[in-house]
């Protein structure tokens, strides 16, 4: 099944324009894959792209919660794969954007129930209808990971500045198909801790992973507030986290943008330096 999929991937149809299917992965759990998927998707939709978010974390779905769409979910991924409902019926439109859609994971099923070949076909179909298909990968490197990767052409690797997260990210990068050009998002960076030598820096992390750096997300309390409310921070024009996600979306879309500098909000001096254009 894998072999066949790989072949058809290698020869993309020249007839219809194809969207990009990108898997958001990390290996380790709890580093912010789902938050990243929701925010990058939201930011891409804000730019006018048509975006489908696919929650591939069957059995532990959360993407609907982060997006605040849990009340709207009626059907899920496995309903579509098993042809119980049509794809259009299962896709949930976002509250705020007409361009953003969610295909939720099944909560009461298991990852092993997902057929890899059917998953590949589904992502291909979504690519025909959307500019971007972002696939929220489950933690781990087992069947759930394989199903999340099978239809994608590329990957975003999310990593926090921790030994365990870097090790797992390194492992996951090694398991991605060779054709992928994975890009890195360093999540939950606390610049103050980095300066004190108490946290790995972006350079430390990427000195090991050596991936193109897509963006850096500062660790801010408003992420928790946003998740509580189900409102992705990408929508918030005042949030530093939101600005980082919007910059990531711009970079993904091919804009030549300068990523916002990650600054410490807490330090008055640092903000002063920031005001005068210094690199903090």
């Amino acid at each position, binding site marked *: 099944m894998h072999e066949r999929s790989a072949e058809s991937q290698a020869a993309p149809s020249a007839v219809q324009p194809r969207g990009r299917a990108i898997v958001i992965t990390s290996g380790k759990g709890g580093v912010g894959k789902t938050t990243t998927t929701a925010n990058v998707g939201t930011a891409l939709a804000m730019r006018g792209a048509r975006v489908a978010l696919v929650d591939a974390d069957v059995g532990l779905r959360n993407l609907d919660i982060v997006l605040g769409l849990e009340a709207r979910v009626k059907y899920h991924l496995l309903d579509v794969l098993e042809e119980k409902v049509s794809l259009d019926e299962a896709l949930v439109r976002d509250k705020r954007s007409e361009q953003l859609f969610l295909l939720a994971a099944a909560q009461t099923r298991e990852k092993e129930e997902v057929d890899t070949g059917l998953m590949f076909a589904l992502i291909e179909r979504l690519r025909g209808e959307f500019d971007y298909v972002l696939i929220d990968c489950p933690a781990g490197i087992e069947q759930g990971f394989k199903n999340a990767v099978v239809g994608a052409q590329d990957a975003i690797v999310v990593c926090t500045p*921790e*030994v365990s997260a*870097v*090790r797992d990210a*390194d*492992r996951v990068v*090694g398991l991605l198909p060779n054709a992928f050009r994975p890009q890195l998002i360093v999540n939950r960076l606390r610049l103050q801790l*980095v300066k*004190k*030598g*108490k*946290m*790995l*820096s972006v350079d*430390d992390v990427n000195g*090991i992973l050596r991936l193109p750096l897509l963006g850096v997300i500062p660790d801010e309390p408003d992420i928790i507030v946003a998740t509580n409310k189900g409102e992705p921070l990408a929508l918030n024009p005042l949030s530093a986290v939101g600005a980082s996600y919007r910059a990531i979306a711009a970079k993904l879309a091919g804009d030549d943008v300068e990523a916002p500098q990650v600054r410490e909000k807490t330090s008055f001096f640092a903000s002063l330096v920031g005001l005068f254009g210094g690199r903090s």
Partner: protein
Amino acid sequence: MLGFLKSLFQPQSSSEAAKERLRVVLLSDHLSLAPEVVELLKADLLAVMSKYVEIDERNAEVTFEQRESDFALSASVPILSVKTDRTATYRASVAVGTLHANASEDPIPSAPASPGRRRRRRRNRRLAQIQVASTTIVQASQVQATAQAQAEPLQV
């Protein structure tokens, strides 16, 4: 300020410790070599070397280290004396398990050995530097590496 003063007295920050731990853990992840495999490799490596030269096994060091873009196996082996006659070829291709090692193409000094010179040579302890380069992500079974033994002309 307090943090700065503290950092003066702390020899290693926790992020430095994290970096070092990552380096070590990824090394074994990438090479898929368990510590006991490294010990076996070391023993085989020394066995091969001692076919050609008399080495100081107790002071031999075999370590893995990260270089700019890859990992390297470094062996520092004190050589006590040269064993065989110099007319023998010093090209050797020796399979050690799955590791393929080629001795250097550099011929050893071909000066005729007078008994006196041979004794002096024995007294000279020599170091052979071996570097085995590998790509960052390799399986142990795929390692095809070249070991180069550098023999410098003797200075008496």
